[in-house]
């Protein structure tokens, strides 16, 4: 076999592997995109603005990771409670819990989060939340309250799926307690891919919600005074006047293509924030989809 054929075959094998694990490909693309943008900003954006963008990105990611962690914790706990009540045939508490979950499911996330943010703003003004970390943690808890039902649905569905199989009864006969069967055998050993995929998709949802609520609070409620000193995120950064002006230039570029070049040198703050939001959302969606395809979830 000639060396050219060998290299061709190698390249095809590599592209085939990438097609089979699109999630990894998109993780790689996301990291490369972020690094490339970081390098670009290091050359062309002034240091204070760059520090703000970096801080906003870090806070947004930290917030989204916390949302996923809280949502998994809440979802796991509520799903186990639901299953426990159902198994113990305690119909009244089971119905109450299901009713409350359905009630929460029908609240549009943005409306619920607005109410939650009003509470946080009050606490910050009373200096009850002194550190940035504690403010982000509390906002994450509120966001998680409006997304954790997806985790509950997934866990309940996985438990039901395995209960209908011989697997569950066989383990019971072997003397394994139901608690261990559910937590270790069903969820950790046989549903890890599902949980990871759900976590990735929740991560994307959390970024979208955090950015949107911060944008609304920053731009919608007031342009003259800061209603609260919430930690800076990509959403609140985008709402700043200079970032908004940068974004407005995109529209001007449609009618005056000569200024397209300036977008990447003179309007970097707004453009880079918009890029970080959109690119991250797109990549996270692709990663979640890739996981779904790879594990046939």
């Amino acid at each position, binding site marked *: 076999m000639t060396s050219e054929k060998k290299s061709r075959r190698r390249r095809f094998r590599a*592209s085939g592997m990438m097609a089979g694990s699109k999630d990894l490909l998109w993780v790689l693309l996301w990291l490369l995109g972020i690094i490339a943008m970081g390098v670009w900003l290091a050359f062309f954006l002034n240091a204070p603005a760059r520090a703000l963008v970096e801080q906003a990105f870090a806070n947004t990611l930290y917030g989204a990771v916390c949302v996923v962690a809280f949502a998994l914790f809440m979802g796991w706990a509520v799903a186990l409670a639901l299953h426990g009540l159902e198994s113990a045939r305690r119909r009244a508490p089971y119905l109450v819990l299901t009713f409350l979950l359905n009630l929460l499911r029908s609240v549009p996330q943005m409306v619920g989060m607005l109410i939650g943010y009003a509470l946080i703003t009050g606490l910050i003004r009373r200096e009850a939340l002194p550190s940035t970390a504690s403010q982000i943690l509390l906002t994450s808890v509120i966001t998680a309250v409006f997304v954790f039902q997806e985790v509950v649905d997934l866990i309940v569905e996985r438990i039901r799926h395995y209960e209908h199989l011989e697997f569950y009864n066989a383990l019971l006969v072997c003397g394994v307690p139901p608690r261990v069967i559910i937590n270790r055998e069903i969820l950790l050993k046989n549903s890890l891919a599902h949980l990871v995929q759900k976590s990735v998709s929740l991560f994307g949802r959390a970024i979208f919600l955090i950015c949107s609520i911060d944008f609304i609070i920053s731009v919608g409620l007031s342009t003259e*005074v800061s209603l609260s000193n919430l930690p800076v995120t990509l959403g609140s950064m985008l709402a700043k006047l200079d970032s908004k002006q940068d974004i407005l*230039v995109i529209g001007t570029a449609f009618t005056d293509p000569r200024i397209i070049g300036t977008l990447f040198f003179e309007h970097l703050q707004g453009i880079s924030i918009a890029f970080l939001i959109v690119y991250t959302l797109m990549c996270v969606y692709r990663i979640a989809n890739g996981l779904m395809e790879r594990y046939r979830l």
Partner: protein
Amino acid sequence: MSSPSAEQTHRSLRSILLDHLLSVVVVGVALLALSFLVRTKPGGSPHRFGKEIEAYLNIDSVDWSLPLDRALFRDAYRQFHGASEQAVDSVMNAIEDARLADFTDPTRKVGGGPRALTLSAAIELVPMYAAFVAVFFTVLLITYFLARAAAVWKFVLWKQRRSSYLRRYFVALEYGGVKNAILRADLLAKAAAKGFASIVLFSPAYVIAYSLRTSLDTENIFFLVLLAIISNGVLINFANRLYTLMVAESRKGYVDTALVKGVSSGFRWDAKDGLRRSVLLAPVRRSAGHVFREIYRNARLQFIPSTKEHITFIVTGLVIIEMALNIKGHLCYALLQHILYKEFDIAIAIVFGIYLVVKLTEAGVDAWHAIELRKYDNDI
């Protein structure tokens, strides 16, 4: 007489509808209690702050909206009084409170507007509410049909084993060299167009709206509907859910049985045993005698309940658009204004109105699902 299973479906629909009604009552009572607690007092007394704070606010050379001026004041205050960081923070918070109280003073509200939830205030909300409901249902319907077409399109391409444009381009490049690279440049253009469409579909509404604000009128209702459909990932998530269900259905045993029985199973467009392109518009009617019909129908049955998730997501999208773009005369803009001016009872009434729309639509979806389920009952 209906069969037991039909009776069961009927009963469960009734209990589901009762569940929705109970939710509305519970939320309504809770919000009513809350609105009494936070009820706006007509002609409330203006805020008064200490003389020290008012004196600081009256310093002519300080523009309090500028971060630089605030930072300079901080340093000056710390050095002049020899104050600790905590004491400076306290003064700065008091100044911010005073400015906020002044800014949210009802006398400064543009256009006046109602202060408390009275009958006239409720009547003023009605046209805004009607417009919100109309926009919501329009967006929901268009999104459903577009997502359905997109999901069917993606599924057929998946069955055709089509690889991505970029991959096909690289294969052409691998085997045909530079000449093929030039001849198949259309694949690159298609990949770029697909990439651009992805960026638009994943962009939050405010990014798109602000990008187009200088060249388009972004405050009319058509733009609002368009934005609600194409942005925030609404369409792509909606379509992907149906596509995933169709892929899962196509892997089930009954599909193989149907193929053995000789049902059409080709997925090439307009081929003899393939699918007509009109299947994108009417998937059931235009696929008679094809295995796709059963795959689609079974996937749709599971897809209907998941529509409820998308309802709340569409409402979230609309709230974001109306609030972020500050479109005057729209319900969510009014909601934001009432929150800003602490007219919480009116804000709560608006929130309840939005909740009511969601619940009504969810009840409709449940009824639709129950009707579809009945079609599968053997009622002979």
